[in-house]
């Protein structure tokens, strides 16, 4: 039984907010929630902080500890998802058996779709790299290196998850010159010789690297690149995986039939005039008509009031020279 009460809108603003949460033909960007388990380690907390910074502004950080074990009980995750209208979760845990654990969860229709557990084995935070960082809200480019991401089911899930996390919402247009600032590169190590297919032990690590991109002028239209490591630099070990239910996945992958007229009229295109500036604030422009300053009421300053010329003023002239 859900703990959430159904809200009946009492004014237009609440009604609009509720309408945005309803299922839509073209969806808005997925929000991610970063939540801590009962016990966390310093490393896990720092990793979550960096991943949260990369996901801004569509991310929520829960700073309190919650008694969550995603692989056993998903009820609290579902509650958070419904309350905050978020469908991506990163749970940070730490135990002796699974040190520095991160559990990525995806939701569909208010229920858990699939889960992925990664362990942090090497970490260098964004603060440790002395280099300029990308602005908040800019889309990263994403690169995946390794054939495993195409062949092995666990790695396919990792690819799907990370793509969905950072670039899931497909944009229709971007300005290339100012709109590309960084690239996230994910590489899986080579498959070792002693790899056992049945037990899936000794799986190669997944390396997560982020670089800032500098576009250099080249002779042709396509610029040359220069990469500088921006951080974070994380090495993940692949642990447990919970695959999605077939039926649910089928429903989730259904594509809407959008008529061409709808696309042209701007269905799903980003709202014009709303932008996120470098501080992460939402800004928009107000366009006003030309204002007639002579008719405007400014501040009144009594001393500057223009008085009428009194005839006696001339007679009251004082001779300064003495």
């Amino acid at each position, binding site marked *: 039984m859900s703990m959430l009460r159904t809200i009946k809108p009492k004014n237009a603003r609440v009604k609009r907010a509720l309408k945005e949460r309803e299922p839509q033909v073209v969806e808005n960007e*997925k929000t991610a929630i970063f939540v801590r388990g009962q016990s966390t380690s310093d490393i896990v907390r720092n990793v979550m902080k960096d991943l949260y910074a990369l996901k801004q502004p569509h991310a929520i950080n829960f700073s309190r500890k919650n008694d969550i074990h995603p692989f056993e009980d998903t009820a609290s995750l579902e509650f958070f998802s419904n309350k905050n209208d978020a469908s991506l979760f990163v749970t940070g845990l730490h135990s002796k058996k699974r040190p520095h654990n991160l559990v990525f969860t995806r939701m569909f229709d208010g229920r858990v779709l699939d889960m992925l557990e990664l362990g942090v084995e090497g970490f260098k935070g964004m603060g440790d790299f002395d280099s300029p960082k990308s602005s908040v809200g800019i889309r990263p480019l994403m690169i995946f290196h390794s054939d495993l991401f*195409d062949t092995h089911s666990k790695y396919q899930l990792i690819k799907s998850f990370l793509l969905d996390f950072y670039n899931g919402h*497909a944009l229709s247009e971007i300005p290339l010159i100012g709109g590309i600032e960084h690239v996230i590169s994910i590489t899986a*190590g080579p498959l070792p010789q002693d790899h056992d297919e049945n037990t899936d032990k000794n799986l190669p690590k997944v390396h997560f690297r982020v670089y800032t991109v500098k576009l250099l002028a080249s002779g042709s239209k*396509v610029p040359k690149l*220069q990469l500088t490591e921006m951080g974070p630099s994380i090495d993940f070990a692949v642990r447990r995986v919970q695959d*999605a239910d077939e039926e649910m996945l089928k429903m989730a992958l259904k594509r809407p039939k959008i008529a061409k007229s709808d696309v042209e009229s701007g269905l799903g295109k980003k709202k014009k005039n709303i932008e996120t500036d470098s501080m992460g604030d939402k800004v928009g422009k107000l366009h006003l008509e030309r204002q007639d300053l002579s008719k405007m009421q400014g501040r009144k300053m009594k001393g500057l009031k223009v008085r009428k010329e009194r005839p006696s003023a001339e007679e009251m002239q004082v001779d300064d020279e003495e």
Partner: protein
Amino acid sequence: MDVAKELADYAAANTTAVLDRPNPIITDAGLLAAFDNTPVDAYEYGSNLNTHLLALTLTSTQALISSLFTLPTKSSSSGPITLLPAPSTLLPREKPLPKPKPLTKWERFAKEKGISHMKKEKHVWDDEKQEWVARWGKDGKNKEKEGQWLTEIKAGEEADQDPSSTARSDRKARIAKNQKQQAANIAAAANHSSDATAISSRGGGSTLSQEQKKNLRERRKEELKRSMILSKTSTASLGKYDKAIKDEPKVKGLKRKFEPTVTNKNDFKGEKEHALDVLHKLETGVGKVKKSKKGGEGDEGGLNVRKAVRFQGKVDRASGGGASAGKKGKRK
């Protein structure tokens, strides 16, 4: 001070050299992603991991950038904007596709007649005042008649009337009518969706055939009749002395049949058959599962009122109890 190493590191970090890849790099411009599907070189991976990763990234990013810069662009006030294609990798949605809402009564009519929707502006030009007046709201034109100090009466009308109050009551009546129509639309939509789910849960398609619609209507009719009968007989005198309402469904009670206690002297055949029947049933078990007569319905229609009332009471308690138990729920 040996700066050679620093210079070498700097050069390595800021290289623009691109590696050769045996397989072409697959790019998904819609998602700003590129996939390099060659296995990672184990030697390079083992010896200098980070520089190798940098080199790999450089190669793939170059490929992605070159594909992005060849896409069509459109110009805008802040420079050229690239139009991205649709993504080729399928990623799952977060919510299911929205179900199409059933059309309201007016929408159906407008669709049939081909009436398109004209958007009305909030302000209307008032020739008399020579200014823009709001159509509705604070000093809206719709309240003009209520505020006039002078109203002309037509020749045939009575002199004794309050035009402002009649205008106000007319406006209020229009509002009430509109709200009633809205409620009716919502109810129709809810009914539609519940019928649709009932049908689909039985394994039918999402569209209802004529026959299915007819069955639904019949069932609904029966349900309504039953509830009317139940409410009628739920008085102390079982509705015998109530005022009869026109067109009320007549209660057709079930006739209980009793075997006569004293049978004919020579006719024991009926009794014998009955007893043997019982034995037979005990031996072989009851065959087909008969349709549940929980609601008090008889095989040929008619209604056992006592059973019906008990059944309805049970249903009410189950649903009412379930809803109130839900409120308490799990608290943390």
